[in-house]
């Protein structure tokens, strides 16, 4: 049940990412949101430091846990405590969990509600109509988006300094992990159940690029998270094959492609890397940990091919 919700949200996000149909309206919405945040901070100083924060979305859960003291968080989404998809699950314990239903949220008298663009829509619309302060965060399709999300959350939560510090720490680590100029970029593909690969306009694709790897999914014309036939994967023959760490909750045909003997035959001559899903399912600073894992794989490939 839980995972179903996540995967549906992911799928929605990917579909949007793939078609980019909403792209033109996003900057306007974002500006409006920022304006609302700024205005509410200016008009109601009591809200400058919200202390009854409610989050409805896995990604905003982690933003809140990162930026504000735990005692100011009234409620987090029920996914916040799942260690496989939440990078802050160890700090989420003991906080009331919600399932994004209005009846759960209203009695908490939140002074700000953090939501994701693709979750709990009916609740978010209701809360907005009722005049609550809602930060509706879009998904991140790049590391630049992550910086923007962190600053956005910092502004809404009255923690702009913390947000800037997080962004600066992130940038410092990214600079240290970046490949030296002129260094070879080994090829890589992120391959998921059902034979899905990550394209260029995805957070995963951007993380791969930041780690100094060449994302063959993007080169093969995959948009968003799209289908890549096993034959095509074999022909592209990436030097690094990236898979996630999620254990199937029950058997499903979707995982068969990852166990196919043809893929196993290829893996023998490829560096396989496992990136925990929780590091890049959301646009949070933890994506730098994913960059670090992939940068290590890059060094391994270069060392191997150099010797």
């Amino acid at each position, binding site marked *: 049940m839980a*995972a179903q919700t996540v995967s549906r949200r992911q799928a929605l996000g990917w579909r949007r990412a793939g078609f980019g149909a909403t792209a033109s309206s996003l900057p306007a919405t974002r500006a409006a949101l920022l304006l609302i945040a700024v205005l509410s901070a200016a008009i109601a100083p009591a809200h400058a430091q919200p202390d009854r924060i409610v989050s409805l979305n896995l990604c905003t859960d982690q933003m809140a846990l990162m930026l504000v003291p735990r005692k100011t968080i009234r409620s987090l989404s029920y996914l916040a405590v799942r260690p496989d998809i939440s990078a802050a699950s160890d700090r989420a314990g003991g906080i009331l969990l919600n399932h994004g239903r209005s009846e759960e949220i209203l009695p908490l008298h939140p002074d700000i509600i953090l939501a994701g663009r693709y979750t709990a829509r009916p609740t978010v619309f209701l809360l907005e109509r009722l005049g609550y302060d809602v930060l509706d965060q879009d998904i991140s399709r790049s590391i630049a988006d992550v910086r923007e999300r962190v600053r956005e959350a910092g502004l809404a939560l009255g923690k702009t300094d913390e947000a800037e510090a997080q962004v600066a720490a992130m940038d410092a680590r990214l600079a240290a992990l970046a490949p030296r100029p002129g260094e070879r970029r080994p090829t890589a593909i992120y391959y998921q159940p059902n034979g899905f690969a990550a394209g260029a306009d995805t957070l995963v694709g951007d993380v791969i690029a930041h780690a100094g790897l060449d994302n063959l999914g993007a080169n093969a014309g995959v948009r968003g998270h799209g289908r890549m036939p*096993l*034959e095509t994967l074999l022909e592209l023959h990436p030097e690094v094959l990236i898979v996630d760490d999620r254990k199937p*909750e029950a058997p*499903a045909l*979707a995982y068969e492609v990852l166990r*196919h003997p043809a893929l196993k035959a*290829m893996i023998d001559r490829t560096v396989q890397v496992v990136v925990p899903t929780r590091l890049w399912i959301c646009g949070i600073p933890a994506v730098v940990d994913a960059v670090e894992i992939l940068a290590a794989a890059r060094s391994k490939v270069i060392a191997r091919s150099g010797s």
Partner: protein
Amino acid sequence: MRATAGTGSRLWPAVRAWRLPIVLAALLAGAGMGSLFAGSVAMSPGEIARALIGGKRDVFEIIVWQLRVPRTLLAMLIGASLGLSGAVLQGLVRNPLAEPGLLGISGAAAFGAVVAFYSGFAALFLLALPLGGMAGAAGAVVLLLVLSGPSASTLTLILAGVAVSSLAGALTALALNLSPDPYAATEIIFWMMGSLADRSFEHVQMAAACMLPGWLLLFSVRRALDALSLGEDAATSLGFDLRSVRFRAVFGTALAVGAAVSVSGTIGFIGLVVPHLLRPLVGQEPGRLLAASALGGALLLTLTDIVVRLLAPGPEIKIGVLTALFGAPFFLVLLLRLRREAS
């Protein structure tokens, strides 16, 4: 002079009997070669040949040996099972509309396979998955014979098949919805419409191991089907034990169809179309139809699977969609013709 003529006239029926299977086998071999060329990666004949000879363990060799060869073999095995069991069922119940898909045998096999696969039972040993499929198929055949009786009318049999089909479909959907895995629920399309995409030699092994004994059982009723075309009394008086004939046909079908569905999902109409197309060519003898239907089913499914791969620039369409697109109109025409004959 007379001696030569005598040999010739004795040889002639034998040649005639083998001509159709030989032609079909030759076409099947050609389709099998063609099937090695179909896929998302374009390969020249020279590259295919080098990959088939092998020894280099390069990417082309992996693509040909680990993806395209098992896929082609599975299309042949499954097509043969469906064509053969269609021919046997039609002969056994003397009903031109009998077919594993229409009678709900494939659907029930899918339910059995779904239970075996998603419960984790299939991971225990190689043959666990086809065992589930065969159990489902056997259950459906027994249920059908009980529901419709041994010499049922066309209508009764088809209606019983509709009942078994919809029950099996509902149970399959239920089983998939009960799985905690988020992907499982979307996989109903595979079990309902079938696909041969990304199957491996493991599937070929498990399918073949169960299909071959099924085929032997099905072929063993060859002569009995000829006798049955004269009626049950005639068959009994010719010395055929009809209980044993029925048993072998039923369990042969369960083995062949159960194993087929458990690796490819439900692929409909092959068992209906193939025997009908070939029946005029074998002189209306149900026994002679069996080998021809097996080869014809293998040929038709191999060709359909090539079309599936050529059609799709994006995600592959399910192979059962294509077989239904030509099978369902065929079924309707057949119904019209039967009605005209009856009136």
